[in-house]
């Protein structure tokens, strides 16, 4: 398997560390509820199909990446810097 790191190019998956689903957002702040945190930490959609997931290019540029990959075929539709995705996510959150 190879992942096309946005700055390093196609690299063997052995250069990366996998974390998991990128969809859950951390319930931030002092008023986050335990129930929301439980959901965030433990519950997963685990889809058979496209999956947005976090990978860390530890043996390369040390970027966290959001990879959209089909878990049945491994076809990768998109690879983005996690930081960019996170900023977009937070920007969205900020909109009332």
């Amino acid at each position, binding site marked *: *398997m190879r992942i096309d790191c946005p700055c390093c190019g196609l690299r*063997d*998956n*052995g250069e990366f*560390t*996998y*974390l*998991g*689903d990128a969809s859950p957002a951390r319930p931030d702040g002092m008023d986050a509820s*335990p129930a929301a945190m*439980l*959901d965030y*930490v*433990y*519950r*997963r*959609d*685990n*889809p*058979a199909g496209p*999956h947005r*997931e976090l*990978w860390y290019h530890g043996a390369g540029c040390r970027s966290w990446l959001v990879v959209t*990959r089909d*878990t*049945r*075929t*491994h076809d990768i539709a998109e690879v983005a810097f996690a930081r960019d995705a996170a900023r977009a996510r937070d920007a969205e959150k900020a909109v009332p």
Partner: protein
Amino acid sequence: MRYSLLSVLQQAFKGQRDWTPQWRDAAPKASYDVIIVGGGGHGLATAYYLAEQHGIRNVAVLERSHVGSGNIGRNTTIVRSNYLLPGNVPFYEKSMQLWERLEQDINYNAMVSQRGVLNLYHTDGQRDAYARRGNGMRINGIDAELLDQDQVRAMVPFLDFDNARFPIQGGLLQRRGGTVRHDAVAWGYARAASDRGVDIIQNCAVTGIRRENGRVVGVDTTRGYIGAKKVGLAVAGASSQLAAMVDMRLPIESHVLTAFVSEGLKPLIDTVVTFGAGHFYVSQSDKGGLVFGGDIDGYNSYASRGNLATIEDVMEGGMALWPGLGRLRVLRHWGGVMDMSMDGSPIIDKTHIEGLYLNAGWCYGGFKATPASGFCFAHTIANDAPHALNAAFRLDRFATGAVIDEKGVGAQPNLH
């Protein structure tokens, strides 16, 4: 026909004429008291115990492909009860005990081979962790021996003791552990369940779970709707997909694990050995193939194939542990999709939906659990309450914090 030396000899003279299908390839009835989804080891064992222990015989096992096509048919066959944590220990020991009488119980030779499981340690810290585990086992009445280097050398002299990056200091040995012929477990339970009235329905994939007034009434399948008073899910790697049918999100991810078999060889190793400083474990099948494996690939996957990074990692582990493997050849490698749970331990529980039961989260270690899993799941379904042995395997443990994390790596399934 009962299986015995006598029947085998008789059939030898009759040109094997009188054998009949080992289990009935049943067609679905309109409804059942209990439907078990998943014709893997756990599903079949559950059906067997429902019939055998609880007298519930109006049972169907629905299998989307053929019986044994899942992980029961693709694992490295290691059975052991050398667990660490109180939630796990008695359950796996029960399983071990059920293995020990499996053949007599189901009249099928699944080749339960108690050749010993030896987990190697390479540092003092690892030794102490194994001592902690071994002592816990002994306290629970389970056999465990902590071996030093000389004792390990005597058992498996061909390992790399002298030039190793991580020298072997010793090992934790469970002599009662060993291997079981994987396919035979599926077939044997299928036959035993079928003989007791269970319908085994192959090529029948569940596509939906129907509810009325908050309770389960049946399942939609590729072979039509089938009614059921109770539905038990035992679909291993597909657990999340089934749960999604009733809008449940599970603390589970599906991951692929690769296993390997070498070409057939004359007897080389008569125990199961696990490397403690890399990902590698090995045993030899009765046919002569070295059966071995390592770590999971580490990414969510529903494709039963692994990739080179992991394959190399396993081979490196193999060579580091046992340099004599160099010229032996890998014959085949394959993958299985496993239900990796968030704490690495299983779930056998009723769900919040009445009539729906869940058996999942077996990670790469559920083969050894097959008999006890069937036993406990049957109990849970029959009594609508868990057995003491699976009392810790509850779904709510993640909320309460009573997680059972043998490895101590936390809520990250790919690290368990």
